């Protein structure tokens, strides 16, 4: 057992305005006190009281979580008259999600989505869940994978025990699956990035740490037991960038992943909506996020020093980064052939095809749709990575077939972390590996390098079976 307490000054308190109103709406003293409240509070309380009156819900007998009983029959009038509230049956759980009580109950990664949602602060969930504009790119990411068809092989060489091992820059990993950089993991579980690192280390898979992580590079490396990769967000002052690069490089980081897909900003409406009212600067948010004066996330703290040049973000910038570090340099967020070509010419050691999980621009262009042209432009000169919308072992298989060298997940492992800490992340990895092995056995591929483009073809329409109201199932 390798868990450890994390002595981080987070504070555990935070709350949503809506939860306060829910609490007050449930109070037997509401009637006595309501008349004295401000008009906006009275309206909010009335809304919550109405929700309480109409929302069918039940409380999980074992875990105590209140869960909505939104069965498909209730939500879709065309399927018939809504019956009395009843627990979801298996088919509901399969396509609408369910609240699991243990990692052992998880059948697929979606089973972690609901439990993470149920057990985390709404604002934190919204941050994880968000897409830009109307979530078109998040939809596209899933549709891109479900539109592609795997071409099975029934007979042939044995693939009973597929070998998932993968080599990247001379380092051996147990599989091509990796954990993407996701900010602020402690917002979902006190174990934070270290919990994910222990799970990744146990499974021998790659983890990329976010520049916006809750924990420092050293803490995460200690949890894993060896150096991992670091994702960089550059700031205009180049000296600040150099200081953080020097810090992770001196700690042993072998690969720097520079995210270039947010330089122009992104329209994240869900965050703005969830922070309406007091907003991030309000007392509730600040109680956790800034309760120590001058607090900064670990990888942004201690970088003070003389100001440097403020270079434009052009292709020379890649060369500048290349010149100040011996680490391999991967560009994350490249989605076109022409930029892939330019990136390799500028000295990039790897191309990471990503639309930031549908959180960058509302292009409506799936990362898996971008992959083939990038692979074609790169021509095998450097490794190609991909993320955004990967939820199944078959998604990993499809990406590998289209030329990716490694395939990342973001939200799914954070769902696991938010539900059950390290154990949840570990189970998510296990599930995806199991699904990938099935896909490999069904295509008679005994090793990763046997997965070729002939095993995947494009279908006419995406097959989206999952319930996706409120964006669940994306």
């Amino acid at each position, binding site marked *: *057992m390798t*868990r*450890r*307490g*994390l*002595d*981080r*000054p*987070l*504070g*555990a*308190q*935070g*709350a*949503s305005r809506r*939860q*306060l109103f829910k*609490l007050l709406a449930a109070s037997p003293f509401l009637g006595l006190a309501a008349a004295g409240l401000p008009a906006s509070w009275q309206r909010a309380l009335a809304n919550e009281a109405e929700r309480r009156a109409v929302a069918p819900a039940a409380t999980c007998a*074992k*875990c*105590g*979580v209140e869960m909505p009983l939104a069965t498909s029959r209730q939500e879709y009038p065309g399927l018939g008259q809504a019956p009395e509230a009843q627990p979801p049956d298996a088919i509901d759980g399969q396509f609408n999600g369910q609240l699991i*009580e*243990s990692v052992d109950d998880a059948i697929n990664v979606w089973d972690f989505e609901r*439990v993470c949602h*149920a*057990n*985390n*602060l709404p604002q*934190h969930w919204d941050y994880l869940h968000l897409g830009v504009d109307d979530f078109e790119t998040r939809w596209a990411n899933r549709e891109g994978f479900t539109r592609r068809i795997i071409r099975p092989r029934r007979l042939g060489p044995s693939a009973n025990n597929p070998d998932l091992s993968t080599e990247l820059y001379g380092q051996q990993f147990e599989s091509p699956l990796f954990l993407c950089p996701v900010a602020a993991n*402690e*917002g*979902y*579980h*006190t*174990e934070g990035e270290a*919990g994910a690192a222990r799970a990744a280390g146990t499974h021998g898979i790659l983890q990329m740490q976010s520049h916006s992580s809750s924990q420092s590079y050293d803490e995460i490396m200690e949890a894993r037991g060896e150096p991992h990769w670091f994702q960089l967000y550059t700031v205009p002052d180049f000296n600040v960038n150099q200081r953080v690069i020097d810090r992770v490089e001196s700690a042993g980081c072998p690969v720097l992943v520079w995210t270039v897909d947010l330089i122009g900003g992104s329209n994240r409406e869900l965050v703005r909506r969830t922070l309406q009212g007091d907003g991030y600067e309000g007392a509730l948010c600040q109680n956790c996020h800034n309760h120590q004066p001058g607090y900064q996330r670990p990888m942004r703290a201690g970088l003070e020093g003389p100001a440097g040049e403020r270079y434009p973000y052009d292709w020379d910038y890649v060369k500048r980064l290349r010149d100040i570090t011996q680490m391999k340099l991967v560009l994350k967020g490249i989605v076109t052939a022409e930029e892939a070509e330019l990136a390799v010419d500028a000295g990039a050691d790897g191309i990471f095809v990503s639309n930031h999980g549908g959180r960058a621009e509302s292009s409506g262009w799936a990362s898996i749709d971008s992959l083939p042209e990038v692979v074609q432009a790169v021509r095998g000169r450097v490794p190609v990575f991909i993320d955004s919308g990967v939820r199944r072992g078959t998604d990993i298989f499809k990406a590998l077939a289209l030329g990716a060298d490694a395939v990342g997940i973001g939200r799914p492992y954070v769902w696991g*972390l*938010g*539900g*059950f*800490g390290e*154990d949840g992340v570990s189970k998510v990895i296990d599930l995806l590996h199991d699904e990938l092995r099935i896909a490999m056995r069904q295509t008679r591929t005994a090793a990763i390098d046997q997965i070729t483009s002939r095993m995947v073809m494009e279908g006419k329409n995406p097959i989206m079976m999952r319930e996706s109201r409120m964006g669940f199932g994306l």
Partner: protein
Amino acid sequence: MGIVTRGLALFCAVLGVAAVTSAQTVDFAVSGNSTIRGWTCEVSGTAEVTAGGGAAAAGFSSGVQGVTLTVPVAEFTCPNEEMTEHLMEAMRPDEFGEITFQMDGYEVTSNGATATGSLTILETTETVAVPMTLTESGTGAAIEGEVRLDMTDYGVEPPTVMLGMLRVRPQITIEFGGIVAP
């Protein structure tokens, strides 16, 4: 030797060896959820083993008669001081200094054993079954396991903070692990 026999022998051997030595350290991690995020708190406890009859593994002298796990409540540590304070308010270490598990019996399983016994938290004692894996280790044997509980079954009130806006879920998982060595 069949796997069941081997498991029984190993289990008895582990406990039998421990019986003739001082108490062994076992690490515990208690995890759960809240309306804010998941959490884990940790503590180290002791395992005292009493040698007894029963099958003994090759190289060991006896089986096992009893096992007592003791967890010092005041030594729990959580990720931050605030959480530790809330835990202490719920667990009242001044009144109830220890959580104890007293084994009454065990069954050998394919990869270890399931111990049945009395778990006492605060003033309440309940019978629980605790599955554990036993793995031969260079310095003894590694034990690992977990048990899920509802803290309200033991009269522990889940902490609530900020007028109930932060509520700890009553369902918790206790994981334990350690090396039981001669």
